[in-house]
């Protein structure tokens, strides 16, 4: 019997537990989920608390409620993972041995990593207590300068700071006090968003709403005495009410276990979510190094790919299914409207329409009421479908149908859009989930994978090496482009600095 331990009972961990439990009986796969408490938070809801759209009771439910029968839920702190011994040591002294480990503990907001940012007057909405405190501060705020500040990327739900800014604008307009409030969006990026077309469209929306953008701002500290944000190049931005999205880093146990990079993120394959160090560790949800959004949609799409690969994994074979980085994000823009971004590793968000089977067209990178309603409806979808591993009317692969393409793009255009919802790939040759099980129990079936296990067990110190220290610099002799000489532009293209 294979022992699977899932660290974290949040969005990704709960989804995986449900999907694997449905596919394999308990006598073949023993599943344990570890989390520190029994509160499952609907994290997108934090955004709505400060502007009075949601109340707290819509956000928290019991984790037990969503963990299926036949899955053990262990409530304890995680002390560390011993990847060499394949064991998880818990804070209460217990240990759990595993054959496969899923790290789904995500990232956490850490205001304490920026001097001054953990002061009670510095707000954010990345956990429940801070979101509730911000709700009070917003109620009491009678006018002055509101700063919405992003400390650094990556953060969970990278569009949330923009959404908060739009919702705050709408909130003060509806209360007829917008004229007394100056709103400034301060970001380390060179525009409103990371991707050029979205950045352009969103920048436009800032202008229309009289929101000032302060780009390229690398915060050094918050001066809470003077009420100023201070950057490394000594720029100062004064505030009356400060909402500062903290640095998001992985949990400390990841660092203690020698599994993380400088942000405590676990380096993982971009397409299979498998740890680069340890073939029996997978990283699902926000805690890895996927170069796409840290968002529930990514957790969902990548878990689908993980499930497709699972029969191959337990058979010791190569993992054939590749995650494409697909993310889709609803952006609340205020006044009952919303917009939708849809993108992947190769394709930035475009304008256009999103063919949403069974629901109807949604507007991409443009505002509409249907986008807003879809976002509100998503809370129900989250609790009732997503966490429980029930199928949703979204595709895992990103499609280009309906998008106005500018520049380069990758994705699935037109073909199989609707049929693709039902089955994206042909079934594995001999291995549907069920068919793969017998071979998984044969010890010989796992043998072929052992040469790939990077020379057997590794110590945490060894794993720290590749995640931490950098190889020595070695000068290289450059090669020229092999492009057709007639296509070479005579002048360089110089970026805007």
């Amino acid at each position, binding site marked *: 019997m294979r022992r699977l331990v899932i660290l974290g009972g949040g969005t990704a961990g709960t989804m995986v537990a449900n999907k694997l439990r449905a596919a394999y009986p308990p006598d073949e796969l023993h599943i344990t989920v570890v989390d520190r408490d029994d509160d499952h938070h609907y994290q997108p809801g934090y955004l709505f608390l400060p502007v009075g759209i949601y109340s707290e009771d819509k956000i928290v439910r019991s984790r037990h409620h969503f963990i299926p029968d036949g899955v053990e839920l262990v409530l304890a702190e995680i002390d560390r993972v011993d990847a060499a011994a394949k064991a998880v040591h818990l804070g209460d002294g217990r240990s759990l041995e595993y054959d496969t480990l899923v790290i789904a503990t995500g990232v956490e907001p850490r205001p304490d990593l920026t001097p001054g940012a953990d002061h009670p007057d510095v707000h954010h909405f990345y956990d429940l207590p801070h979101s509730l405190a911000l709700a009070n501060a917003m109620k009491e705020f009678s006018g002055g300068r509101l700063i919405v500040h992003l400390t650094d990327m990556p953060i969970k739900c990278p569009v949330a700071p923009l959404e908060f800014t739009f919702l705050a604008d709408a909130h003060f307009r509806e209360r007829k006090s917008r004229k007394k409030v100056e709103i400034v969006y301060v970001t380390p990026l060179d525009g409103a968003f990371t991707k050029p077309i979205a950045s352009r469209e969103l920048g436009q929306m800032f202008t229309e709403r009289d929101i000032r953008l302060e780009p390229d701002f690398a915060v050094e500290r918050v001066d809470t005495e003077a009420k100023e944000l201070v950057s490394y*190049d000594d720029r100062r931005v004064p505030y009356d009410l400060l909402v500062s999205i903290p640095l998001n880093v992985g949990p400390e146990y990841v660092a203690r276990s020698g599994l993380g990079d400088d942000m405590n993120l676990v380096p993982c394959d971009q397409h299979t979510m498998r740890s680069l160090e340890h073939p029996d560790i997978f990283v699902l949800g926000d805690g890895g190094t996927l170069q796409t959004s840290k968002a529930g949609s990514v957790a969902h799409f990548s878990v689908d790919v993980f499930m497709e690969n699972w029969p191959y994994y337990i058979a010791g074979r190569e993992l054939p299914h590749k995650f494409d980085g697909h993310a889709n994000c609803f952006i609340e823009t205020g006044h009952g409207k919303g917009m939708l971004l849809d993108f992947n590793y190769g394709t930035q968000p475009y304008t256009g329409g999103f063919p949403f089977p069974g629901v109807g067209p949604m507007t991409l990178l443009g505002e509409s009421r249907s986008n807003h309603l879809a976002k509100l409806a998503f809370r129900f979808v989250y609790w009732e479908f997503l966490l429980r591993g029930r199928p949703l009317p979204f595709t895992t692969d990103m499609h280009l149908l309906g998008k106005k393409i500018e520049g380069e793009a990758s994705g699935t255009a037109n073909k199989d859009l609707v049929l693709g919802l039902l089955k994206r790939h042909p079934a594995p040759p001999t291995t549907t989930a069920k068919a793969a099980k017998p071979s998984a129990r044969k010890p010989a079936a796992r043998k072929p994978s052992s040469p790939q296990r990077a020379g057997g067990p590794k110590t945490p110190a060894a794993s720290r090496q590749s995640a931490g220290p950098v190889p020595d610099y070695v000068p*290289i002799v450059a090669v020229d482009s092999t492009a057709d*000489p007639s296509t070479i532009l005579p002048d*360089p293209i*110089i970026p805007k600095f």
Partner: protein
Amino acid sequence: MPTTRIGGRAIDVNDEGFLTEYSQWDENLAPILAGYAGVEDLTDEHWKVLRFLRADYPARKETATLRRVASVGGFDMKELFRLFPGKPAKKMAYIAGLPKPKGCV
């Protein structure tokens, strides 16, 4: 992806002008790119940072963020802003012939 001529050589770049091939950069190219980025003189201090970025890139396939240059490379953040004023992350990456740091999304 366009190909342009930089320092008399054919170099592949993206639409924004950042080099796309790690192997097409060498130390002779850096001063030319530095000029385009408004960094007039490459001092030893600049070179230490550029060499860190070049050494860090191949294993991670990702340009170090400013935070990583400071925390892992051991450089002082204020110093980085002095060396590459305004937009240090973007300028360092460009001069080192690496992609613009994504900051993911």
